[in-house]
C-alpha cells in the first residue's frame, strides 16, 4: 500500500493546475497581482496575520458592545415602564409581571442587540472571505503546537453556537483530532455567553467594557489551544501527530448587505425562540423560587436557601450566593445567568441591575465571574450533542469534569493575581 502524504498530493494537484493555466492562457507572460493576492499577502502573512486577526476581532467586540448600548438602554426603559404599569409589586401576580416577566425575561431580551451587532460583524468577516483566512493563519500556529488546523473552523463556528460547531467536527478525518476538537469546543465563547459579559463588563469596566469582553474570547481560544495540547500529550488514546490541513480559500468579495442581514436575523430568531421557550420557563421557575414563601424576602426564599447551600463552593472566588445560583441555573442555558441575576436583584428590590452588579462584585470578581461563566460548563444542549457525537458517556463526563476544574483554577488565578495587582497599585 502506498502512503500518500496529503501535502504532497495537494502540491502535485496545484502544479498540474498551474501547468494547465500556463499552457492554455496565452499572452499573459507577467502575472499581475489581483486584489485577492494583495490582501492575502498581508492577511496570511506569517508575522502580521495573527495580530491583524486579533485586531479585527477586538474591533468586532467593540462594535458589538459599544454601538448596541443605546439600543439596549431604550429596550430596557420599555421593559422598566412595562414592569411599573401595575404599580409596586406587592402581590404575587404583580410581582410575577414586574420581577419575573419584565425583570427577568425582559432583561435578557435587552441583550438581543449586542447579539445582532456581533453577528453583523461576523457575517461581514465571513461574507468577505476573511474568516477562512483566519482559520488558515491560525493553522500555522496550531500545527506548530501539534494540533489539527481544521479544528479552528469548528472553533470559529463556536463563537455563534457550540451545537452546530460540534456537529461540524464531522468534517475532521482523524478520530483523535475530531475528539480533541469536540472536547475543546465548549471553551469557545458562544453567543449565549455574550449577555453575561455585556452585563458584567458594562457594569464594572466602563470605557474598557469592549476590551474586557474581547479578553474573554481570547481567553477561550488560548485555553482551547492549551487544553488540546495537554490532551494530546497526556491522554494515551489521543496521542499522535495531527493530520495535515489543506483548505481552499474562497476569493474575497464585497459583503452582500442582504446576506449579512439575513445571517444576523437568523441568529436573532434563534435567540427569540429561546426566549419564548426555555428562558420564559426559567424566568417563571426562578421568580417562583425567589418570591416564595411569599413575603419573607429573597434571602429566605427557596432560591435563597439553595443559594446559601451552594455559596461555600464559590465563595473562595469571591462570588456570593446570588452568583452561585446564577451559575447553577446557567447550566440549562447561559442566558439564564443574566436572567437569574435580573430576577434576584429585582425581587431583592434593586432598581437598576447594572448598579446592583457593581455593588455585589468588584472588577476582579466580575472578571473572574465572566471567565467562570465562559469555562465552567457548556449548556445542557451542548452536553447532549457531545454525548451524541462522541457516543461515549466517559468522554462527555470527562469534558464536564475538566471544564469545572479548569473554571475554578482560571477564576482563582484571576482573583489572586487581580487582587495582588490592585494591592500593589
Amino acid at each position, binding site marked *: 500500500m502506498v502512503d500518500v502524504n496529503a501535502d504532497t498530493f495537494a502540491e502535485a494537484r496545484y502544479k498540474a493546475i498551474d501547468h494547465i493555466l500556463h499552457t492554455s492562457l496565452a499572452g499573459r507572460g507577467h502575472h*499581475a497581482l489581483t486584489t485577492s493576492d*494583495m*490582501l492575502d499577502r498581508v492577511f496570511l502573512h506569517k508575522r502580521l496575520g495573527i495580530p*491583524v486577526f486579533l*485586531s479585527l476581532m477586538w474591533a468586532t467586540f467593540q462594535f458589538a458592545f459599544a*454601538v448596541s448600548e*443605546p439600543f439596549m438602554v431604550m429596550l430596557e426603559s420599555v421593559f422598566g415602564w412595562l414592569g411599573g404599569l401595575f404599580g409596586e409589586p406587592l402581590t404575587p401576580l404583580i410581582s410575577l409581571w414586574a420581577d419575573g416577566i419584565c425583570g427577568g425575561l425582559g432583561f435578557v431580551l435587552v441583550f438581543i442587540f449586542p447579539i445582532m451587532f456581533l453577528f453583523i460583524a461576523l457575517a461581514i468577516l465571513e461574507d468577505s472571505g476573511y474568516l477562512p483566512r483566519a482559520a488558515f493563519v491560525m493553522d500555522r500556529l496550531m500545527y506548530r503546537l501539534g494540533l489539527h488546523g481544521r479544528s479552528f473552523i469548528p472553533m470559529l463556528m463556536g463563537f455563534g453556537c457550540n451545537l452546530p460547531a460540534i456537529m461540524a467536527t464531522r468534517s475532521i478525518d482523524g478520530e483523535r483530532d475530531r475528539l480533541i476538537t469536540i472536547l475543546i469546543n465548549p471553551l469557545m465563547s458562544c453567543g449565549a455567553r455574550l449577555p453575561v459579559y455585556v452585563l458584567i463588563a458594562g457594569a464594572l469596566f466602563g*470605557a474598557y467594557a*469592549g476590551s474586557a469582553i474581547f479578553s474573554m474570547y481570547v481567553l477561550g481560544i488560548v485555553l482551547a489551544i492549551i487544553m488540546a495540547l495537554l490532551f494530546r500529550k497526556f491522554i494515551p488514546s489521543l496521542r499522535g501527530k495531527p493530520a495535515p490541513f489543506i483548505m481552499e480559500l474562497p476569493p474575497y468579495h464585497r459583503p452582500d448587505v442582504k446576506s449579512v442581514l439575513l445571517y444576523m436575523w437568523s441568529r436573532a430568531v434563534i435567540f427569540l425562540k429561546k426566549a419564548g421557550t426555555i428562558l420564559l420557563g426559567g424566568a417563571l421557575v426562578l421568580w417562583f423560587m425567589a418570591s416564595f414563601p411569599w413575603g419573607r424576602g429573597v434571602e429566605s426564599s427557596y432560591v435563597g436557601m439553595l443559594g446559601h447551600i451552594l455559596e461555600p463552593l464559590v465563595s473562595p472566588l469571591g462570588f456570593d450566593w446570588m452568583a452561585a445560583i446564577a451559575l447553577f441555573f446557567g447550566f440549562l442555558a447561559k442566558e439564564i445567568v443574566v436572567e437569574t441575576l435580573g430576577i434576584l436583584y429585582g425581587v431583592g428590590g434593586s432598581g437598576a441591575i447594572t448598579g446592583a452588579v457593581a455593588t455585589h462584585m468588584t472588577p476582579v470578581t466580575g472578571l473572574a465571574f465572566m471567565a467562570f461563566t465562559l469555562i465552567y460548563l457548556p449548556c445542557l444542549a451542548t452536553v447532549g450533542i457531545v454525548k451524541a457525537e462522541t457516543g461515549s458517556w466517559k468522554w462527555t463526563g470527562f469534558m464536564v469534569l475538566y471544564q469545572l476544574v479548569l473554571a475554578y483554577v482560571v477564576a482563582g488565578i484571576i482573583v489572586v493575581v487581580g487582587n495582588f495587582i490592585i494591592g500593589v497599585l
Partner: protein
Amino acid sequence: MDFKNIGLYTALIGAITAIVGIFEILFVFTGSELWIPADLFGGLALLVIAAVYLSGIGELFTKKEEGLSFALTGTILTMVFGILYTLMAGADWLMYTLGEADEFLIISELRPEILISIAALPLTIYLFKRKSSPTE
C-alpha cells in the same frame, strides 16, 4: 501617483499611526489629559496597522508592485477602525440624548483613528480605483 509617492504617503500614515498607538498605550500607565485617549487595546490595534503600512514601504521605494499589498490592506484596516469609532461616537450621542451620559463633546469623540482614516482616504480611493498594472 507613482510607487515612490505612494511609499512616502504610506510611510507618513504609518508613522502617524504608530506614534498615536504608542501614546494610547503609554497614557494607560501615565495618565493624560491630552486629546489622545488612553486605550491599551486600541493602541495595540494601531501598532498592528502601522506595522502593516510600514512593512510595504521598502518594496514601494524599490518600485515593486507587491508593496501595494501592504498599503491597500493598511488603508482597509484604517477605514474599519475609522468607521468603528465614528459609529461609537454616534452611539455616545444617542446615549447623551437618552439622558444616559452627562456630556457629549465632539473633541473627545473625534478619536485620532477617525482623523487618520480621513487622512488615508485619498490613498484608499486611489488604491481601489487603480487597475493592476505590471508596467507601472
